[in-house]
């Protein structure tokens, strides 16, 4: 009788432990913030022109290489929108890399100046390529990064 009770108790304790651990792990996963990847080691490192050229020449292969990857991009700052975006693009072309700035990097705008070189890092989120007589075709190719930030002052 004693032995049976003890087994029951052990089972109950194990069950409660599993429940508690599961609960903690689940709660942590639920609460986990999206990571700040700006200062992580990049998967790819390119210039803005190279990134645009890759999508211009072969979107399927460029998607494989860059999509969802942490990409470090070096280029000339075309425009700064302090509500959350920095655009890189070389003079003489409309093609651009548009970088959505991570909420924890909103101070980074102070590190860049329109017309000067900068290094940004973010996750490649897609591209918009000129096609046919679309209105958007007048913008040329745009590659988008999300969760981005400025890496260092140039």
């Amino acid at each position, binding site marked *: 009788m004693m032995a049976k009770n003890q087994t029951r108790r052990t089972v109950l304790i194990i069950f409660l432990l599993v429940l508690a651990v599961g609960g903690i792990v689940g709660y942590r*996963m*639920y*609460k*986990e*913030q*999206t*990571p700040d990847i700006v200062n992580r080691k990049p998967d790819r490192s390119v210039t803005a022109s190279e990134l645009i050229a890759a999508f211009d020449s072969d979107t399927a292969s460029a998607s494989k290489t860059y*999509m*969802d990857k942490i990409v470090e991009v070096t280029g000339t700052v075309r*425009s700064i*929108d302090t*509500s*959350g*975006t920095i*655009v890189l693009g070389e003079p003489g072309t*409309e093609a*651009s890399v*548009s*970088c*959505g*700035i*991570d*909420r924890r990097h909103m101070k980074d705008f102070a590190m860049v100046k329109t017309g000067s070189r900068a290094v940004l890092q973010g*996750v490649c*989120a*897609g*591209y*918009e390529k000129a096609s046919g007589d*679309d*209105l*958007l075709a*007048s*913008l040329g190719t*745009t590659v*988008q*990064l*999300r*969760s981005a930030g400025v890496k260092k002052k140039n």
Partner: protein
Amino acid sequence: MMKKQLILALLILTATTIFAQSRFYTRTGKITFSSKAPLEDIEGKNKTVTAVLDATSGAVQFAVQMKGFEFEKQLMQQHFNENYVESDRFPKAEFKGNITNNGDIDYTKDGSYTARIKGKLTIHGVTRDIETTGTIRVDGGKIDASSVFNILCSDYNIRIPAVVKDKVSNSIHISVDCSLEALKG
């Protein structure tokens, strides 16, 4: 003779200026979607929306990369991309339409105008007609365009898993905010 030539030159100059400024664009448009529900509030923001507005015809076009939406919670971002909008299969949302009262808007005069917008919205591979209103604020050659409207997940074949059906809202609130600049060239 000189006077005629001068007038002609002025005319050509004015015409080119008007032509040059007939299109406005952005690559830094913001679109926020939010959904309030008993289980939790969901909010995602995209800061790299591309858009072009043709002031002459009133035609507008927007393109939004679904993977460009940023969330505070990692799990939310993952569920949004994998389970709801399936961004690997449908990477882009798009709007193509027209400002139906374009004649009421003077893009050369500073002020705030109400724009009625009608067009086709494509999300998750489903295209539907939508009609909404927005505000166009002209300020020193730049344009701020904004609009808020609601869409239903069910209209775009976005399935909400049965387990959370009562807790996640079918109605999504969308807010668009773009600063447009004159397109040169």
